[in-house]
């Protein structure tokens, strides 16, 4: 078991807690940066897809995991980011500017959506965001002069300063770099007052307001940031799929993004990455598995969504903290062996909240 002697307050706001953590993150960094040297193009493409899911998932995690607002419409933000990226590139914007522009435009849309849905929470908010996603889908279909309508839109090739960013290796490194930057921004947000304000709004609005937190501004900020990160993921997603059509951004994609943050573990950035790996690699894992089981089982229709759903239900029943929560328990088990107590992570009872106020 590791004991950290703290002598300065700065140690508590550092991104990494101790040298052991620095070592493992550095090792992971080296491995993922060097991965293109060992893996073939197919696996690089799959990993780039995982990074894109993770970038979009950071956005959804800020909203769902940290601010406690559920969205069933995040595929719409992914779509806005993707179409904005393609449109800005056709206007001749250089690649990095287009990427930033797509993210900012999506963030502005998110903040604008926040205003009408501000007073909703829970299931009502989920339905409102779902309606928003439908509206965006219809706009994409009908605004043919910009989006190409049903027939879709070709995404211009990604290149910058003479470098071709569309080759599998370059695109892999691009997605990795954007993910690392997005994770850093999100980690910075969460260790500063704005991030704590999000958590405060999640846990008790009445109390947050009496601490001087502006509820409307904070929720608008949460929506804007969430949409911005998801739009950034969408911009990269556009290059990944190469051709944009309205049916690429369905309700199923929104639900998949939501599953990602729930299965990964709500309320942690680790959870986003774990969830993205899970969501991105599960179909491939199932495809590999399909070759080994008897054909009668492998050919059952709807096997993939079935397994997907079963895993989700099992996670929600047995590990509501998600994959990251399970990882923390495993780590605690080994670091405290043989003194680990199961009760450490038992869910505590909540005391009655004041009812006079609501």
């Amino acid at each position, binding site marked *: 078991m590791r004991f950290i002697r703290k002598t300065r*307050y*700065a140690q*508590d*706001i550092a991104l990494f807690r101790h040298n052991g953590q620095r070592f493992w993150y550095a090792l992971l960094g080296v491995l993922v940066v060097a991965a293109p040297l060992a893996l073939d193009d197919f696996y690089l493409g799959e990993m780039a897809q995982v990074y894109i899911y993770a970038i979009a998932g950071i956005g959804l995690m800020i909203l769902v995991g940290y601010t406690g607002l559920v969205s069933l419409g995040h595929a719409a933000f992914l779509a806005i980011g993707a179409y904005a990226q393609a449109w800005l590139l056709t206007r001749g914007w250089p690649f990095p500017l287009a990427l930033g522009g797509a993210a900012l435009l999506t963030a502005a849309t998110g903040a604008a959506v926040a205003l009408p849905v501000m007073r909703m929470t829970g299931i009502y908010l989920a339905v409102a965001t779902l309606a928003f996603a439908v509206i965006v889908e219809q706009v994409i279909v009908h605004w043919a002069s910009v989006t190409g309508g049903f027939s879709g839109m070709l995404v211009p090739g990604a290149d910058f300063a003479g470098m071709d960013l569309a080759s599998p290796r370059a695109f892999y490194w691009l997605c990795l770099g954007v993910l690392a930057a997005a994770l850093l*921004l999100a980690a*910075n*947000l969460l*260790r*500063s*007052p*704005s*991030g*704590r*304000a999000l*958590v*405060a709004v*999640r*846990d*008790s609005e*009445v*109390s*947050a*307001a*009496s*601490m*001087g*937190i*502006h*509820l409307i501004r904070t929720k608008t*900020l949460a929506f804007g940031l969430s949409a911005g990160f998801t739009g950034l993921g969408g911009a990269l997603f556009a290059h990944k799929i190469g051709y944009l059509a309205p049916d690429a951004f369905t309700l199923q994609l929104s639900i998949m993004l939501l599953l990602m943050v729930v299965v990964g573990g709500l*309320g942690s950035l680790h959870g986003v990455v774990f969830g993205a790996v899970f969501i991105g690699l599960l179909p491939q894992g199932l495809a590999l598995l399909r070759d080994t089981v008897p054909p009668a089982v492998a050919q059952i229709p709807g096997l993939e969504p079935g397994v997907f759903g079963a895993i989700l239900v099992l996670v929600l029943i047995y590990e509501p903290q998600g994959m990251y929560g399970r990882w923390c328990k495993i780590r605690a088990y080994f670091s405290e062996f043989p003194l680990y107590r199961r009760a450490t992570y038992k*869910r*505590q009872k*909540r*005391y*009655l*909240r*004041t*009812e*006079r*106020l609501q």
Partner: protein
Amino acid sequence: MSLFQAEHIAVSFGGVKAVQDVSFTVHSGEVFSIVGPNGAGKTTIFNLISRIHDVDAGRLLFDGDDITRLPRHGVAERGIARTFQNTELFDGETVLNNLLIGCHVHRRTGLLAELAFLPSVRRQELGFRRTAEEVIDLLKLQHYRDHLIAGLPYGVRKLVEVARALCMRPRLLLLDEPSSGLNPEETEDLGFWLDDINAELGITVIMVEHDMGLVSRASHRVMALADGALLTIGTPAEVQRHPDVLRAYLGD
């Protein structure tokens, strides 16, 4: 010198007149207690001050300014902190983070600076941490610093709520039944902390409290309410002897 004034405030919910025509003045540096039977309107007055409810009539003045129509977060920005009767902490966070959220009113950095975690943000974080640690030392919460709120006993939660309010470095502190749910020993400690908060930090306190022992020991003046109406204001001894107060508690 008067720090806070309520002038003829009234509010009703449907047909229930929760507070009717109540006026009082709180002087700078005093501990002012509000007592009364259940349903007298004590917590409602707190909710009017912190703008959870709108007053139907009357005015609230803080330091000479009219705060009757401020937005909720504006009340905190003026320097009025409060606690809640059944605790309203941020359950998913540690004690330390709850206290840091208490420092939020002193935030001077913008979103972009925070996303980049500029040196100004780092300095501000260290400053917040120092404030939080001072409060932790004052209320002896060192042991619980990194505990999640969800796992803490009720008495500690009440204290963390007071600590979080103190992190705002308020000029006026509203304590809503600070001793409810505490055992006699904890209540006695609370009396000492109240003295510290009032005398050492110089914070004016308005307290809703049922424990008459604590009220007479800690407060300078007491206001008694019954059924939303003001009965009397005076020293603890005067209020306890006042015939209207005795009638409100004991009946005719």
